[in-house]
């Protein structure tokens, strides 16, 4: 190995910094027109009438579509509950009700304003705890029972009418655990935690370009995370056979879970079909922030049974995901958020009840960590509280409760490549955990906090790749893996270069295009290095096998005795060799002519899963792998203004094998920055009618570089505990880097000023309030 494991330069770097990289917005086609959406101003309403006649008459308008122009199908990831354009009801502010394509975006926008929609406003429901009641004040989906569903909820006597997800973990005797603690004098620690409304707010807003060809094939360009999920979604929405849909993913300006589906693309496609012209749609920043899926809040009630000496013997969690009008891409979050609980600690008893409910707010989606960054906020704050209660150091307490390699977890699956201990101790060392923070003059206070995290990668899943070897011994990898900025293309290139013993610049990537590149599930769940990486190695093996077979007669050797490297084919243990290019020619009397040779390696890497039982959460293999990481922060808190500065930040994550160490470092830094934003700053705000009130980057506070620790105080630690199934032992790095961030910071704030803030983000205003309450009550001790 010589390329894998090195910090090879980003292969997309030059294109991106010189501005030649093509993103969706750069695509311009002949006769292309522009689309805008007419969105609902109401959170919950019946649509009585839509009048598009005036808009249609406007000069420059080429097509207008409403639900009436579309197949009457509901869409969704697993619960199909959402029409592309609102059908008879709208269930959130900003839901698209109609769309216009016109010669310019300005005309399209003006035409949208001319569309008249008559609504009958219905009472709205915004409170998840109201929503989950058996007898809620408002029901969003009256026809829920008739919807097509691809999942099974946990059994319940009666389903609350706004519930779309229910999942349980049942392991051990939870009542006995609490009783034991009561009888033997331990601690029962019970708290409620909440996360906030966070948006992916990618640099590139959602958008797409759609074009139909004369044979009825749709081609769609869109910044998405999965060309195949996009293809199947388009086919379903437009009632086409998937073979009639081609999805091309150009460069993507960030996704973080927000670009799993391409709803806007499907609307653009329906306009393009009607207008018989290519249609481009690019959402405005305000639309992107207010009307595309967000990381919606969770509420967690955590109750722990802890022995006097700090051993966690029972944990009970009830959580509600505050969903929006539709189940959306958040559909699996109530399940997957629970994977965190058994992932790090030994739990003799673990009971979890996890739900997702509809409300008339923005739909819940994925955002880096898919539920685990949220559940970590609850349980890793809880661990800090337990440590203080038991008067045991917070690192030691965690270590005392950790699983060990090979141990059965509370959901059956054994712990493997279990690196939590190493991540935690390396992180603690780097932040000088043993040394208390140097005090500052009031009103400033300093403190340190630490947290552990884990992140599953889902299964079942599969990745296929194809590897073509050219005459000049260069290799072409065809993959539907998407580089969202995380560096996937560079790593896959490194793997090919490594497997063939060639220079990186002799590897070419054919990027996602469903007409050319084979199936890959998704650029999500930190899965591409692991799965596409494996598939790439296997496709390389397959191509090398073909090369050996072609070379064997020429070298008069058995294929098994040959080795392919650096463009040569050697006979092992001898000096005999030929070049790869020799395989592409045949010797004729008069000289050489091209041989009829195609070297195309193919492979599919698949990870199956044992289905998890929604009533017990048990399963031998409910996921592909689990990654671990720890983070620590030192903060400075001003108790008068509430300002929190993260002075130092350490992120220690286990990636099994750092395929590209600089890439991992960037994940540590970038993830840390994003995590700091989520912990302290970012918060989507809504008024009482369900309208987002800070839908601009001026008001939605993504922190700037000034809010980050100085370079020398930001530390990245790479831990490498190889996974038996990972390529070269590697696991993913993309999500774990935001999982422990919030609790690490929250715990540091407690260390500094002795107050807990239970709901994210931990804004200055909440800090001041909590500090004042502490002063008023005269103590800061926790229950």
């Amino acid at each position, binding site marked *: 190995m010589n390329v894998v494991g090195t910090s090879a330069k980003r292969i997309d770097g030059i294109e991106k910094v010189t501005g030649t990289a093509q993103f969706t917005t750069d695509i311009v086609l002949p006769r292309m027109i522009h689309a805008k959406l007419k969105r609902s101003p109401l959170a919950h309403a019946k649509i009585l009438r839509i009048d598009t006649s005036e808009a249609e008459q406007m000069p420059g308008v080429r097509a207008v579509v409403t639900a009436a122009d579309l197949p009457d199908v509901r869409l969704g990831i697993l619960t199909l509950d959402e029409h592309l354009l609102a059908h008879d009801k709208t269930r959130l502010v900003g839901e698209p009700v109609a769309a216009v394509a016109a010669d310019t975006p300005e005309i399209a926008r003006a035409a949208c304003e001319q569309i008249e929609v008559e609504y009958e406003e219905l009472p709205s429901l915004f409170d998840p705890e109201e929503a989950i009641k058996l007898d809620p004040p408002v029901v969003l989906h009256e026809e829920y029972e008739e919807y097509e569903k691809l999942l099974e909820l946990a059994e319940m006597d009666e389903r609350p009418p706004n519930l779309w997800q229910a999942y349980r973990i049942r392991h051990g005797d939870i009542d006995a655990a609490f009783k034991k603690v009561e009888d033997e004098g331990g601690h029962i620690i019970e708290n409620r935690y909440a996360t906030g409304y966070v948006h992916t707010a990618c640099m590139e807003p959602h958008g797409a370009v759609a074009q139909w060809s004369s044979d009825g094939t749709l081609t769609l360009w869109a910044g998405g995370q999965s060309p195949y999920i996009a293809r199947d979604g388009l086919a379903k929405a437009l009632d086409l056979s998937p073979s009639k849909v081609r999805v091309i993913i150009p460069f993507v300006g960030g996704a973080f879970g927000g670009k799993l589906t391409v709803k806007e693309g499907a609307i653009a496609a329906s306009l393009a079909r009607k207008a018989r012209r290519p249609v481009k749609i690019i959402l405005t920043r305000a639309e992107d922030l207010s009307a595309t899926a967000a990381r919606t809040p969770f509420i967690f009630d955590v109750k722990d049974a802890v022995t006097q000496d700090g051993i966690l013997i029972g944990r009970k969690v009830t959580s509600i995901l505050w969903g929006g009008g539709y189940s959306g891409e958040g559909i699996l979050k109530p399940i997957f958020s629970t994977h965190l609980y058994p992932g790090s600690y030994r739990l003799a008893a673990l009971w979890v009840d996890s739900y997702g409910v509809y409300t008339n707010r923005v739909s819940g989606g994925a955002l880096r960590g898919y539920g685990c960054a949220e559940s970590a906020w609850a349980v890793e704050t809880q661990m800090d509280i337990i440590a203080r209660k038991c008067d045991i150091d917070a690192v030691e307490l965690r270590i005392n409760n950790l699983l060990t390699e090979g141990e059965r977890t509370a959901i059956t699956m054994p712990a493997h490549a279990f690196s939590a201990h190493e991540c935690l101790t390396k992180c603690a060392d780097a932040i000088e955990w043993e040394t208390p923070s140097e005090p500052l003059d009031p009103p400033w206070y300093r403190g340190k906090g630490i947290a552990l995290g884990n992140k599953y990668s889902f299964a079942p899943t599969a990745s296929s790749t194809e590897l073509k070897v050219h005459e000049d011994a260069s290799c072409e990898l065809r993959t539907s893996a998407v580089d969202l900025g995380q560096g996937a293309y560079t790593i896959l290139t490194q793997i090919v270069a490594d497997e063939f013993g060639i220079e990186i610049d002799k590897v070419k990537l054919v990027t996602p295009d469903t007409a050319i590149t084979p199936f890959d599930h998704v650029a999500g769940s930190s899965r591409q290095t692991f799965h596409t990486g494996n598939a790439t190695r296997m496709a390389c093996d397959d191509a090398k096998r073909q090369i050996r077979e072609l070379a064997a007669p020429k070298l008069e050797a058995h294929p098994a005795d040959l080795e392919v490297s650096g463009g040569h084919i050697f006979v092992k243990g001898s000096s005999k060799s030929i070049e790869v290019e020799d395989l592409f020619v045949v010797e004729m009397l008069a000289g050489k002519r091209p041989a009829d040779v195609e070297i195309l390696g193919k492979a599919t890497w698949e990870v199956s899963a044992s289905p998890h039982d929604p009533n017990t959460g048990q399963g031998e293999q409910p996921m592909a792998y689990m990654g671990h990481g720890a983070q620590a922060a030192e903060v400075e808190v001003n108790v*008068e203004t509430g300002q929190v500065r993260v002075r130092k930040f350490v992120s220690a994550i286990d990636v099994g094998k750092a395929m590209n160490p600089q890439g991992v470092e960037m994940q540590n830094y970038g993830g840390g920055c994003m995590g700091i934003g989520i912990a302290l700053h970012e918060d989507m705000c809504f008024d009482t009618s369900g309208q987002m009130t800070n839908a601009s980057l001026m008001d939605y*506070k993504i922190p700037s570089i000034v809010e980050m620790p100085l370079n020398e105080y930001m530390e990245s630690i790479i831990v490498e505990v190889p996974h038996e199934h990972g390529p070269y032992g590697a696991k993913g790095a993309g999500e774990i880097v935001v999982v422990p961030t919030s609790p690490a910071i929250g715990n540091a704030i407690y260390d500094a000023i002795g107050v807990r803030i239970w709901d994210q983000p931990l804004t200055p205003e909440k800090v001041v309030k909590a500090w004042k309450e502490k002063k008023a009550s005269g103590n800061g001790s926790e229950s």
Partner: protein
Amino acid sequence: MVDCHYLEPTTVSEVCTLLAEHGDGAKVVAGGQSLALLLRNGLIQPSHLISIQHVTELEDITASEEGVKIGAKVTLNRLIGIDDAHPTLRALSDAIKAVADPQIRNFATLGGAICEAHPASDITVVLISLNATVKLASADGERVVPMRDFVTGAFATAAQPGELLTEVIVPSFDLTVAAAAHRRFVLRAGDYPVVGVGAFVSLNGAGQCQEARIVVGNCSGAPVHAQEAEARLKRNNIVGNNGVLAAASELAAAHVAPSSDPMASNEYKIDLVSVLTKEALTEAVALAIG
């Protein structure tokens, strides 16, 4: 895209003529940093944009007995460090350092910052605390308006249609006994502040406060003068007297009645007024005693 005429006069009198000619539909554009947002959001729909980019006579900074005169078109970046040459502008320079970011400050002008009349503007807060005045020119002539009367509400000024702000005059004061200071609190670098406070104090020989001005931004449409707080300081010994500064800060906080916004509740803003007033006063007093 905006559909309107874009004019580029080169002198103040040409600007005034054009403003008179095109009436209500005319808008001055200086650095365009605020104007572009208003246009994009459809909040203004001018028929004519009159750029003052080439009006070089608005670029001067001159000092006289009266004070320092700053042309309306002087960019914010040029004002950073201006206190080296004009020490009375120290608080202004300090405040501007924190405004937006270097790219914006490179285009943004002092006149634009004042005429934008943003409720959270740091620049108006400081200028009012410095007792500055502005000069307005129109086809009918010139007039001078004190800054404290110029900003009349959120995004509203006393400028009449047809008037161009040509210069800002910051009056002289005796640096050996007087000083101004500014404090702000932001949720993120480069943002408009949640609350900003400008303070000016002058002392007599006995360390008593002679003059005091406390101006609070973003607690109302226009900057607010905390008069009770100012009164609490006047004729009192304020050197080394933390108690009186704290009392004045409390009065300033009691004086304001901000409304909540998505970023901050009114209670929190009031807390900040107290904290920032105290800090600004403490710094101003320290500077005044030299």
